[in-house]
């Protein structure tokens, strides 16, 4: 199997100082603050169920989703807050969803694992590992069938690559791609672990991009703690997908700083040192330092961003807290189309 190329953006040109990068930094900082708030609110018992936060992986959401266009569609797993937020979902409504409130993006019916915001192109939020890959593949077909130039982005974890639906989706995407009918960007969020199982222990072949090439789908690795690198690949690749209608895969090599979920306190599968080491490659720090060094971003600017982000996260919590719970009648809505051809199920 050929060596996997690894892209990294060591050469930074003047475009690096475009205002957009400040926006990306702002967004990454906000995601971090937002996730910290969710962890706090989970401990306070305000958020229920499972909670999977994104801290450490911010460059994957922002680097790629800043490169797509309006009308593009995004699918994700259960670690989905950052994707929804980066697409423009209202943080207040995202937090309200986590609180199980009527004002939530999914009316409080979905929760953390099932954020959904069709208006902003976010098509969920799924809890069965690997289950949404086939959905994304079908969505990509639909967009091409409808003769649009829209594309699909589909996020999933390294661990999801071992389940059958990954395989079926990839092979179908590869086949449809040959007809130019499958404009989808698969993004492996390779954070090294499926819950507590490291890649070496869950994947027979540890070169994940190589696995994807076995479906005749182009794939490349990128150092995803470096949002410049991610964005660089994304720009090029998304253009290609849009032009060709063929799938592509980015293996975003990243790391999660928090536990797998809120219950993963002990983390017996990795050492404190390992986590600490990766904190030296915090994607926020990397971008911030670069903007400081090259573009003259000041400490004050950064401080202001941090404060703003904290403020917005706090506002989201406040909004969520003050929002009403769903009306009990909501229990029975959205089961089937209310005005579909079928009468209500008798009870």
């Amino acid at each position: 199997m050929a060596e996997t190329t690894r892209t990294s953006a060591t050469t930074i040109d003047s475009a690096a100082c475009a205002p957009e990068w400040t926006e990306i930094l702002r967004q990454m900082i906000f995601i971090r603050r937002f996730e910290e708030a969710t962890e706090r609110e989970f401990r306070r018992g305000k958020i229920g169920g499972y909670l999977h936060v994104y801290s450490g992986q911010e460059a994957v959401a922002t680097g790629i989703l800043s490169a797509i266009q309006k009308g593009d569609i995004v699918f994700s797993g259960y670690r989905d807050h950052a994707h929804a937020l980066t697409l423009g979902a209202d943080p207040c409504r995202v937090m309200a969803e986590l609180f199980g409130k009527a004002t939530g993006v999914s009316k409080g019916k979905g929760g953390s694992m099932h954020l959904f915001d069709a208006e902003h192109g976010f098509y969920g939020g799924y809890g069965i590992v690997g289950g949404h890959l086939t959905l994304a593949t079908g969505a990509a077909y639909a967009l091409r069938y409808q003769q649009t130039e829209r594309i699909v982005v589909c996020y999933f974890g390294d661990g999801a690559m071992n389940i059958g639906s990954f395989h079926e989706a990839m092979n179908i995407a590869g086949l449809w791609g040959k007809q130019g009918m499958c404009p989808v960007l698969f993004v492996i969020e390779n954070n090294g672990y499926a819950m507590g199982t490291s890649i070496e222990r869950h994947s027979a072949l540890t070169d994940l991009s190589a696995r994807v090439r076995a479906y005749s789908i182009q794939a490349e690795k990128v150092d995803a703690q470096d949002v410049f690198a991610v964005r660089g690949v994304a720009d090029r690749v998304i253009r290609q997908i849009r032009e060709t209608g063929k799938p592509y895969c980015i293996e975003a090599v990243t790391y999660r700083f928090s536990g797998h979920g809120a219950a993963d306190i002990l983390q017996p599968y990795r050492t404190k040192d390992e986590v600490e080491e990766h904190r030296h490659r915090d994607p926020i720090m990397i971008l911030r330092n670069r903007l400081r060094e090259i573009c003259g971003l000041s400490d004050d600017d950064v401080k202001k961003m941090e404060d703003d982000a904290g403020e917005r996260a706090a506002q989201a919590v406040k909004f969520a807290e003050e929002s009403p719970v769903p009306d009990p009648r909501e229990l029975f809505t959205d089961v089937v189309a209310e005005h579909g051809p079928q009468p209500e199920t008798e009870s």
Partner: protein
Amino acid sequence: MAEKTYRDAIREAMMEEMDRDTNVLIMGEDIGVYEGTFRITAGMLKKYGPRRVIDTPIAEAGMAGTAVGMAMLGLRPIVEMMTMNFAIVAADQILNHAAKVRYFSGGQVDVPMVIRGPQGAGVQLSAQHSQTFETFYGHFPGLAVVTPATPADAKGMLKTAIRGKDPVIFLESAALYGMKGEVPDDLDFTVPFGQSRVAREGSDVTIVSYGRMLQVSLIAAEKLSNDEGIEAEVIDLRSIRPLDLQPSYASVAKTHRAVVVQEQWKPFGAAAEIAASITEEMFDDLDAPVARVTGEDVPMPYARNLELLATPHEPQIIAAVKKVMYHD
């Protein structure tokens, strides 16, 4: 009205809807070049081309899951399962995704898709290829599950399914494909879900069934009439979810006795729900407990003699009718 086979009724429903709406497409294994193992899709690839008649790899989860994605984006995919037995590998895509995404998204998407294919015992297809799935799917909210028993219903209900907004499990019977019946010509002829019908009138006993067993029940009813002078009212449920038992209740109010007929294993089968519901609603009207006629509780054997013993036939229905009438 014209006489048509159940098979042609299904094909026509699909083709008329594909003519009517370019968002309708079909995918499945060997439905295009091969023209379908049961030839339901014969001629369709030639007419509609490979973008709308998609031959897939052997990947039922992939088929069902991609259909969900297509449906969420506005297409109306029909998935042909070569037989419904193979859809078990797609159960997660159907039960956890198709059936639930409307709900957990708070109603942000429609999921207009149809999963259709034959189910039930054929001739010596043995354990892995002979199962029925109305209970399997019927338990899950978010799905519609239908079991047409006639060519007209096959056509009319498939049109309803294709035009709807929800995932529909459309359960055919290979044994019915050759069956003929009158089918209305109207391009807009549809049969709504959740409306069962009286397939035969009678006053002595109520037989409730659906799908292929409806036809067996009708034959049993004729025999009962000819041989015993017992007039059975036969109810065709047509859809399993939503389930309409009003006509069954009305019939029991008249007959005071009911037999439910289902092809597969008794424990936790569809007949249990129907019997339990009839009892709940019509307890005071019942002169005997609702009887269930079902297949034997064993995996389907290959040998023809055993297979015939495993599935219900007219004699079991007749015996059950006599039992609820205390004629035994």
